[in-house]
């Protein structure tokens, strides 16, 4: 009786083991079928693309990063020597990567990070952060949006103007006793924020990234 039970248990274990073996083979086969079909298709597409890619390196960069962006990078490269440096300001969304990509494209030029654009409203604080004597400021936006180059004095003038506007807005709100919260200074940090001069209206009406600058604003002189 006991021997019969043991034999039954062994038999059950045998079939469970065989079931597992089959499950392993089936799952491995399914995995290979799925993964390989994608991988081989992708490889075919890449070869097709490579064999038809009659483009220069500049064209490849323009295709990958965007034409406007590549043009802006090339202009900044011409303006800032390879052994020089620049002040980096991030006007795109924090963590969007825009500042990193510009820094990579401009390397080996050294970058001194000034911070997020929306933080830069106090000229004295900005001056405290200027730990190196650099003449150029590069403002970056979200990925794909061309960066902008400013002379430092233009940028500082814009920061001062934004600071004055913010102070005036706060004073107005104080006079009217408005209960509503003041507009967040971080408006410029949201995706779609603009360079200080590009909007021509400070934080009040941020323009879309890459929007044409208002005449007479430093954005006109963006290279």
């Amino acid at each position, binding site marked *: 009786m006991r021997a019969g039970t043991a034999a039954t248990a062994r038999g059950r274990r045998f079939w469970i083991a065989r079931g597992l073996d089959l*499950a392993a083979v089936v*799952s491995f086969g399914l995995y290979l079928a799925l993964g390989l079909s994608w991988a081989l298709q992708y490889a075919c597409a890449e070869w097709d693309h490579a064999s038809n890619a009659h483009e220069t390196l500049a064209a490849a960069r323009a295709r990958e990063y965007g034409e406007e962006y590549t043009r802006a990078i090339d202009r900044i490269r011409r303006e800032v020597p390879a052994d020089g440096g620049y002040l980096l300001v991030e006007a795109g969304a924090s963590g969007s990567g825009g500042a990193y990509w510009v820094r990579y494209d401009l390397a080996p030029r050294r970058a001194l990070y000034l911070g997020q654009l929306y933080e830069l409203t106090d000229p004295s604080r900005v001056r405290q952060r200027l730990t190196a004597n650099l003449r150029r400021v590069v403002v970056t936006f979200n990925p794909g949006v061309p960066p902008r180059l400013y002379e430092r004095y233009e940028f500082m003038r814009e920061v001062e103007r934004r600071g004055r506007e913010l102070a005036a807005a706060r004073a107005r709100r104080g006079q009217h006793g408005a209960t509503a919260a003041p507009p967040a200074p971080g408006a410029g940090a949201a995706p779609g924020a603009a360079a200080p001069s590009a909007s021509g209206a400070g934080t009040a009406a941020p323009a879309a990234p890459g929007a044409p600058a208002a005449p007479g604003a430093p954005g006109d002189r963006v290279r």
Partner: protein
Amino acid sequence: MSVDLSGGLGAVALFAVPGYGLTELFPGLRRLPPPRRAAYGYLLGVTAVAGGLYALSHVCGVPLRRPAVWAVAAAPALAGLAAALVRRLRRQGRGTPRPAPRRPETWLPFIALLARAACVLAAAWICAGVFAEAMINPPHDWDGRMTWCTQARYVRAAGTVDAGVLRDPRWFVTHPQYPLLLPVAQAAALEAFGADPDVLLPRDIYAAFLPVLLLVIYDGARRGAGRTAAALAALAAAAAPFLVHGEGGAESSYSDLPLACFYGAALVLLLRPRPRPSSGLAAGLLLAAAVLTKNEGSILAVLALALGWRGGRAGVRRFAAAAVPVVLALALLASWRAGIPNRQDESYADLVRTGHLWPGILTNAAAFAPVIADKMNRLLHWAGFWWMAPVVLIAGRRALRHPRCRRLLAGAAGPPAIAWIAYSIHPRPVSLAAVTWERFLMQGAAPLLVALALALAAVGRQLAGWRRRSPVPQRDEMAGASPCPEARGSSG
């Protein structure tokens, strides 16, 4: 087309040729068939050329310019050539060598042969697709542009690994203390060919790590699992979309795939049945490269040394041969880092000191475990690999009883364990897990896939014996012959 085929091949050859020469000095690698020997050669070449330049630049102040790059690349190539000539002359002096005893011809099942040929073709096609992608597209990944490629440009421009931009805390550099082996390799390739910084040839250096990984997996699995299971496991690696296209895969400029290769290849060499000092030295060089490739490479190197430990005089000699390059690499890394102020980086040392490890190792898990599960379940990233692998490993569990398989699994668990600890102490574990977990999985890919091949082979044997067996096991079967062929020949 803009495809710079010669530039890309030249960049790969800059490391592959010296590395192939170096394999001549290691009998265990020299006897391998050319493709597998070339795979180890590429890894040793990156180690020798980029690692050599790293050390020479930091310790001796040698400028990272074209003469230094060519000299460092030529030295191992010439050493290998000289060793080959000496060996040939000695062999001639001894007369014609006795032909190796031929194994009795075994009947090769046609299906297995066909399966292996299909595996080779499919893997070669996938690797070719990666090279094609690398030759036409500029870098488009995140960390590659944020850290590795940017650092390579700084190093190349300065002509030293101690670039001023890294050592001056004012400059905005993300992860300035990350080890620079791969950026140095990029800079060396560009400098050797006098290339424009924008050219795409450094991308081929990274693309070459995919076939290397596949060949290392095949080499590690072939002895224990047989050629068909080994080829299938290598193909399974090539079929995992994340290993090819993921952030950290072969199409990116991250250092994770190179680290997976260095760590995996070293483990394969250290877990070979016969402990030889020469294979220990080769493994040690690869582990030294792992130390200089990524932060976690130091921990993985120590883990690999521990897993490769064997008793007896031969085991100790091999361990010593492997440990010496690791210690030297750790010293070089510490010395190089000492001059670089850390900024824009997670300071794990400080986080551990402030006592986040406990109870974070338990409490944080509730936060990041769902992210981990979600990442592994993504069909587009893994094509169901993490559903398939446990089933195969459980089905082939008899193979896993072998000590070598257990060590391989422990080796595969190393990188995810490091990730788990990092998430446990990090103030934002969810965001960190979301961007790094899959890369840690990839770092342990080689030992996992070798173990998977052994399990697959066990499943194959079980299925082959299915019809012959009855549900009630026979006496000899209950005696339990080891499912792992190696178990019969070695003590693990």
